[in-house]
């Protein structure tokens, strides 16, 4: 079972990850090649470009992209580069208009991609095919219930196959709205000086809550040990689910929410029970979940719904973006609660996330010793029949998929390896 990067030994209840995976630029190069160039990556949400003419620019998988809605209302994704000589056609974070115009030589493109005009077009010969110089899309673009994904791999599996068991969990989030879930204005954009995979682990790590967030989480632990489980959703995705005592704006009232909100929340719960039945509605309303969609999308459906995506810049640096998702029809008071709920815990100015960042950066500093202390241990709960959320099954799910893609590409050794230290 052993491979150079991972020791996965169920008989000895041992799962270890080689710390070289966290520090080596060669490993990152293979990750870019085998993961970020090959699988589906989350780009953005349809609600961020709600109207025809809306556009935004964003870098995903290392590529500058434009996400927009064209005149016909269709969602479009373009490589953010002029087909003439390469300058970006969109230099704003977001905007609204009929054209994306490259300022360099003023080539102008419709949001549908068509090259609409270029100065002195007559200087090009009769054989010049202007239509062939439309904006170019990534090889694959697809949407699942408002979530827009791209892939730079023309032969990638269909998005739904990739999402596997995670699709149902997206349904549980999206169905919380009677109309649409929308991304609220405002993006938290930050960075962490640590390997991107450390944030994967941290985002679905129930074990660290009792130590890292002791001040915040004391009251939570009992709840987390009951009715909590981790589930492998296939193709590297995983979820942890648990009942937490915090309020959930989708239909679970608790202090410190104002008493006046008790009624609208109960009403919304009743609607969801009517629509989906007690069992599914109960799951939607009462259960908190942290969902990992491989490789780098986290959806936390907890005291608010957060969407977080991140990508590596260097082995020891990642960029992170986080948004908040809410039912479009929710009333203003509940919206406000949801926003404040988010901020009490999450985000780079919250009460918890700065400590997570500190923990990840502290790991990365510790990895300076990787040659002498090569292994990290992710064995917790391997002996359990049904691992709980303070176990590490969900991380093993990620690492096993990672290892399939990066650690041992069939017929190919991606990185010449020199494993230091004992297995």
């Amino acid at each position: 079972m052993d491979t150079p990067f991972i020791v996965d030994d169920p008989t000895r209840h041992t799962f270890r990850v080689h710390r070289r995976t966290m520090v080596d630029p060669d490993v990152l190069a293979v990750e870019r090649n085998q993961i970020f160039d090959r699988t589906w990556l989350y780009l953005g949400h349809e609600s961020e470009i709600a109207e025809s003419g809306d556009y935004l620019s964003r870098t995903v998988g290392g590529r500058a992209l434009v996400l927009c809605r064209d005149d016909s209302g269709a969602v479009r994704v373009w490589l953010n580069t002029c087909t003439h000589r390469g300058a970006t056609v969109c230099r704003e974070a977001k905007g609204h208009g009929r054209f994306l115009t490259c300022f360099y030589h003023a080539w102008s493109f419709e949001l549908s991609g068509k090259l609409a005009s270029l100065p002195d077009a007559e200087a090009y010969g009769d054989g010049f095919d202007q239509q062939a110089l439309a904006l170019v899309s990534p090889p694959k673009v697809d949407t699942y219930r408002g979530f827009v994904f791209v892939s730079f791999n023309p032969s990638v599996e269909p998005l739904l196959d990739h999402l596997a068991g995670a699709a149902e969990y997206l349904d549980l989030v999206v169905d919380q709205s009677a109309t649409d879930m929308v991304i609220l204005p405002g993006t938290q954009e930050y960075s962490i000086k640590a390997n991107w995979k450390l944030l994967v682990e941290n985002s679905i790590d129930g074990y660290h809550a009792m130590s890292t967030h002791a001040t915040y989480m004391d009251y939570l632990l009992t709840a987390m040990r009951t009715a909590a489980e981790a589930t492998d959703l296939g193709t590297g995705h995983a979820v942890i689910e648990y009942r937490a005592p915090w309020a959930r704006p989708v239909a679970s009232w608790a202090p410190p929410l104002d008493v006046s909100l008790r009624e609208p929340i109960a009403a919304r719960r009743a609607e969801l029970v009517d629509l989906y039945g007690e069992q599914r509605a109960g799951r939607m309303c009462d259960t908190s979940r942290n969902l990992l969609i491989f490789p780098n999308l986290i959806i936390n459906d907890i005291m608010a719904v957060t969407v977080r995506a991140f990508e590596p810049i260097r082995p020891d640096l990642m960029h992170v973006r986080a948004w908040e998702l809410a039912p479009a029809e929710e009333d203003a008071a509940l919206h406000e609660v949801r926003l404040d709920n988010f901020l009490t815990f999450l985000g780079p100015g919250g009460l918890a996330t700065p400590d997570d960042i500190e923990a990840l950066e502290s790991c990365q500093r510790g990895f300076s010793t990787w040659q002498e202390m090569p292994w990290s241990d992710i064995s917790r709960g391997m002996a359990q029949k049904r691992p709980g959320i303070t176990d590490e099954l969900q991380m093993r799910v990620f690492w096993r998929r990672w290892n399939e893609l990066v650690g041992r590409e069939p017929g190919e050794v991606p990185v010449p390896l020199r494993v230091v230290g004992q297995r």
Partner: protein
Amino acid sequence: MSAPSRLARAEAEDFLYAEAELLDDWHLEEWLALCTDDIVYEIPATGLPDGVASSSLFLVHDDRFMLESRVKRLLSRNAHAENPRSRTRRLISNVRLGESPRSNGQPDLAEGEVALRASFHVVRFRDDEMHQYVGTYTYRLRLSDDGPRIVYRRATLDADSLRHGGGKISILL
């Protein structure tokens, strides 16, 4: 005796400098004593400098209870991002009186309140790294016999992201 109704710019500056010193010296309880019970302390997301906290995602939006929790946390040993503590230096300038923060979703100035704006440059040192936060403060101060008290305090960052600020805001900005 009625509370003063005006604040000279020099007095406003003295107040801001004293506040900056309390924060730089980690006298956070003393700083908290300058805040009213209805304090709002907020930092909009970068990229949304005109955001209103009731309808958009912020980086910080604290009421008194949350702010007290934040201070208690920072003064404990469990605020890991500030343990060991960073050293900070707050440079405050371009102080202007009298511009209402109404556009931030704040109510009109009440009797005995003044609004002010100032530029800040907060530098944070930790782990041999330097993080910088640059932007504009917007205040609503309530004047009392004991001096001005903070009703509203907003730090609007100029940066496009927190990637220049060490990736987070673990101090009171």
